[in-house]
């Protein structure tokens, strides 16, 4: 079975890795970034490299089942010459665009739930504003160190997290009941209707304070944190958690994105090829995913995240 899996995965992985890490544009990007700026290259070089890089990231993100923002910020800040402020600003819009694109389908099918999303979104988006201000006011080296530590934590979380498809919630708590955080959806593979409700709602809401802060500080989409909290802690089914998390990003990231926009953290030359590249890559990724389920890609992405996290950490520490 392992041999069959590896035969399927290897060509995809090799192709993506080849594009991402051994292409001349990547090598040029890294060397130019290491030189400390982008002045030695013609102006069109960077938008083009960034577009191709983000296109491949978009494919990888879908295959690995992670959001684009969580890959974008550590990798682009590690290998491109833009200041971290602009990378975080663009990262928020990358995550926002992905969430806005996915949101309509998820809402119509009843997988993303407004009743589940609105209360947690209010908390997360409020604290994302605070996070954005903290992130923009701290010295870059400190943010770089914290970003590195956060990315390493996310990689470990992705590696160890075991989500539960249908968590058992015997009794809904008072907060969840008052907020009406329950609903139902059709499981398309079986045609069955599943009803769900939340528990430990108060604790879950409190964790969204932290999620909002981190999303705003580092410009990361926070799907990696939303899903385990909605699923493992609050007891929402995995499909509902994944869909609601994706939709939730459109609200959380909006508030932080506006702060970056108002504080000059958005350069269109950087942001637009990132957004468009990642979105097109995601569309291609969905098509590849429909034909194969390259589970190993997830582990490769976790390894890449660990690498990018360590690199950010070392960069912040001046090593």
């Amino acid at each position, binding site marked *: 079975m392992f041999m069959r899996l590896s035969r399927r995965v290897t060509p995809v992985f090799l192709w993506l890795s080849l594009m991402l890490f051994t292409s001349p544009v990547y090598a040029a990007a890294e060397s130019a970034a290491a030189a400390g700026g982008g*002045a030695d290259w013609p102006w069109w070089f960077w938008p083009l490299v960034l577009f191709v890089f983000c296109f491949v990231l978009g494919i990888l993100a879908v295959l690995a089942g992670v959001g684009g923002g969580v890959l974008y910020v550590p990798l682009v800040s590690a290998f491109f010459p833009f200041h971290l402020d602009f990378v975080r600003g663009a990262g928020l819009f990358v995550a926002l665009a992905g969430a806005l694109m996915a949101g309509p389908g998820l809402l119509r099918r009843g997988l993303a739930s407004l009743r589940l999303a609105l209360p947690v979104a209010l908390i997360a988006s409020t604290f994302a504003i605070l996070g954005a201000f903290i992130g923009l006011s701290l010295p870059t080296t400190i943010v770089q160190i914290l970003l590195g530590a956060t990315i390493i934590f996310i990689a470990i979380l992705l590696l160890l997290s075991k989500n539960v498809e249908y968590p058992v919630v015997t009794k809904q708590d008072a907060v969840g009941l008052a907020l009406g955080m329950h609903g139902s959806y059709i499981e398309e593979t079986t045609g069955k209707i599943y009803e769900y409700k939340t528990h430990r709602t108060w604790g879950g809401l409190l964790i969204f304070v932290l999620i909002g802060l981190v999303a705003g500080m580092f410009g990361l989409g926070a799907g990696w944190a939303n899903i385990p909290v909605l699923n493992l802690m609050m007891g929402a089914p995995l499909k509902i958690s994944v869909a609601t998390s994706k939709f939730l990003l459109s609200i959380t990231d909006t508030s932080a994105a506006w702060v970056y926009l108002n504080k000059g953290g958005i350069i269109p030359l950087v942001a637009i090829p990132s957004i468009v590249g990642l979105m097109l890559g995601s569309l291609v990724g969905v098509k590849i995913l429909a034909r194969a389920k390259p589970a190993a890609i997830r582990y490769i992405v976790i390894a890449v995240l660990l690498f990018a996290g360590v690199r950010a950490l070392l960069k912040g520490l001046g090593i």
Partner: protein
Amino acid sequence: MTAQNGKELEHVPAEQKAYATLLMYGCWIGIGIMVITYFFYLSGIIEPFVGIDKVTDLWHLPSDEFSQRLDIPGGWGWLALIGYGDFLNFIGIVIMGALTIIGYLTLIPAYIKKKDFLFTSIAIVEVLVLLLAASGILGGGGH
């Protein structure tokens, strides 16, 4: 959590469907405008306020220093420069940022109609939070 075989699915609320439709059209409009304005910017058809070479020379600086050096106004000051190729790009970006606010504005009357005052309040407070972030009141340090 319970499972049943019946076809009686809780109806996806009308306000949720309306929100979805708004996001879908708004997002594609935003992306479309972004691509068009970016083309105008890169091709030089519309002259930028800051030359692209200057941007690439200074984009390694923190955002506040970058803005100061290039004399770029903060907050919504970019609106005054909308005729330039680089600031024209902000139209699509702002549309993306405004979609959630507009979406929430459509939810408020729907929740009032349902007499769901808790969610009406949540939606109103969320709009205020997002408007506060968007307004630049909290600090529009510069572009």
